[in-house]
């Protein structure tokens, strides 16, 4: 086990072949396991160029017809807007809320915070579809508990998901309820693993809490924050379960996101070829966003490492 190459400080071309391929060998199992997915992915791209439908016995190449149809339909632009609004707003709220709660849990080292560290993760554990049904019951205007609470404040028959004006707000609220726990857990783990020494020297320097947060905690936490943001945003842009369980995309087209539109076209209307472009656009959007976030994450990681050393 000679490990001279560890840390990547030496030049690649000077090390022996065996050492050079080692990292690839270690990563290989992960890649092999996931690479199988490339086959269906390529198949799906091919289907987007055909009239593939469950209703037809065979399918034939139709060129860019599905793509042109999509780009010229109002459905698509509405769906893109809904996906972006849902994804960006819910992720933003969850990041801020999750960071805040994680800091509170970390700083308040009392009994309450120790109990809540476990309890606050629980919303994630209820399957999203079921969680949404529970919320639906709570928000119902005839039998819901929230309605009764609102009545105390003089608000009656708040429409929640039933009105185009409040539907997006409602699904985002449920999404925030479910997924803030995801941010809390990752950020808390990040906070817990921050090294103690920089803070100790800061204490000696007499820095105040806010100064410490902005100049020490935040930069060192940034890599974890970006990871949390990355995975949350990717999932939120694809979100399907909450909307489907609550309104099936309604009222009208209010909540017809890209995922929902694709699902409806593909599995309900059985026009698989026409559904795929909607998802590929989503794939592209997420790809671009992820590239950007990953770049920020890599930089933050380097900076954080510098701070700690």
């Amino acid at each position, binding site marked *: 086990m000679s490990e001279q190459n560890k840390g990547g400080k030496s030049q690649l071309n000077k090390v022996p072949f065996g050492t050079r391929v080692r990292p690839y060998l270690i990563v290989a199992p992960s890649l092999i396991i996931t690479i199988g997915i490339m086959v269906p992915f390529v198949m799906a791209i091919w289907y987007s160029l055909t009239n593939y439908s469950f*209703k037809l016995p065979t399918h034939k190449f139709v060129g860019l017809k599905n793509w042109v149809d999509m780009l010229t339909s109002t459905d698509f632009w509405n769906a893109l807007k809904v996906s972006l609004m849902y994804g960006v707003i819910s992720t933003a709220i969850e990041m801020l809320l999750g960071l805040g709660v994680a800091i509170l849990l970390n700083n308040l080292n009392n009994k309450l915070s120790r109990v809540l560290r476990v309890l606050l993760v629980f919303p994630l554990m209820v399957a999203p579809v079921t969680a949404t049904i529970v919320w639906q019951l709570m928000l119902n205007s005839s039998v819901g508990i929230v309605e009764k609470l609102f009545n105390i404040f003089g608000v009656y028959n708040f*429409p929640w998901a039933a009105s185009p004006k409040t539907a997006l707000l409602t699904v985002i609220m449920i999404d925030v309820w479910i997924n803030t726990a995801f941010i809390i857990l990752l950020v808390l783990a990040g906070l817990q693993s921050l090294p103690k020494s920089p803070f100790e020297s800061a204490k000696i320097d007499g820095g105040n809490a806010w100064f410490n947060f902005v100049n020490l905690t935040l930069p060192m936490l940034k890599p974890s924050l970006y990871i949390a943001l990355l995975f949350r945003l990717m999932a939120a842009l694809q979100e399907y379960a909450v909307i489907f369980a609550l309104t099936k995309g309604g009222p009208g087209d209010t909540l017809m996101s890209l995922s929902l539109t694709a699902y409806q076209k593909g*599995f309900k209307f059985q026009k698989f070829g026409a559904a795929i472009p909607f998802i590929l656009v989503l794939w592209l959007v997420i790809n671009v966003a992820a590239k950007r976030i990953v770049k920020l994450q890599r930089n933050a990681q380097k900076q954080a490492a510098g701070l700690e050393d």
Partner: protein
Amino acid sequence: MKKAVAMLLAGLMVASSLTVTVPAAEEEFDWKKFDGEEITVLFSEHTYADAVEAKLDEFTEKTGIKVNYSSMPEGNYFEKLNVELSSHSGSIDVFMTGAYQSWEYATAGNLEPLENFIDTDLTSPEWKYDDFIPAVINALKWDLVPGHPVGEGSQWALPMGWEVNILTYNKRVLEEKGLPVPETAEQLLEDAKALQEFNGTGSYGLAVRGLPDWGTIHPAYMSLYSTWGAKDFEIEDGKLVSKVNSPEAVAMTEYWVDLVKNGGAPQWATYGWEMCGADLGAGKAAMMWDADRGGYTQNVEGASAEAGNFAFGMVPYPESAGKTADDMRSNLWVWSMAMNADSAKKDAAWYFMQYFTSPEFMLWSGTEAACTDTPRTSVLESEEYKNSVASAEGYYEAFSKVSENASIFFTAQPYFTETTTEWAKTLQKLVTTDEYASVQDAMDELKEVMDEMVSDLEVE
């Protein structure tokens, strides 16, 4: 001696008629012909499916056919089924479908025509095709030409149970408020408006579905739409043409929007059958217009807070449009079972299908397994059946009366899911937004969209 034999025979006959098994003729029918075969069945979660599941062991015992049974909740059943069927792998032999869906599956070549089995020696003489209620069995026949009415062509599926869409009302509430049981659409609207907030905030007059899918169109809305004299499509110059902007259709939809806005649930646009039934059962909705089963089950003791207070009305007809009780139309829904055309074990699959649609099984399921919407005349006319539904006031009368005019009032065509989804979305926009200047505008626009959807269909 002769007397003793006669008595013995009589005793045997009584015994056999009591146990309702193995009548004489069946000795000639070979139930064990496909002994040892194995079939796969995919059903949607339903009372009808539960009844089948309960008797699977008896089926296997009688035929020697092993059944791999699985069921999915209705919310995702069709997606799962669509994928399985589209693979053409024969992974499923028998599955559940509705009549509307069978139009799509039959057009795609997924369904085995059942006349290949019905009149052959693979069918027990006890099975009796003619015993099915004509409206129900005909709803599952179609000649595959879009726009042609059901009732002609191949038999694509067999009924397991069916539902008519009628009014269920809380008689306690109507009595307390001094409101008449609505027989006309006008009365229904008046009652529904008068009942807003009858039991505190959020309570309302009439529960109907409002989600953006076919489930919103096919029960109450389509029943009244047809009663009003409106059609969804007509054939013109060899093309299917949407008629949703006809004067009758617009008048009916104007009425409907008014009804939902002023007499329906505040969160109507998120309502499926579950919440409709739940509000009715909790006494938060005074009436419901949906499948008869929905109201029926809320009325069973212990099923809901208001159980026992429900009674059944019929289809409210629009007097202002010159309609009478004779014009009542109830759109019907048939849960049925069909055979996968790609099945490799069609004979064994047919044995399964005939066993679980036989008069004998259906008498049991109709009276003892809560499948009250029996598709068999012999069951409907039996005393056992009448007794079993007697506790639901007006149910038997409504069910048998409305059945006379019940049918599928949708035009058979393979884009049913798409056109009805669009239709439901238009209703949602009419109720929840000010997007349209008038119902006429909305229906004109809907017509265009629907025409476009079916434009590639060859009618002749």
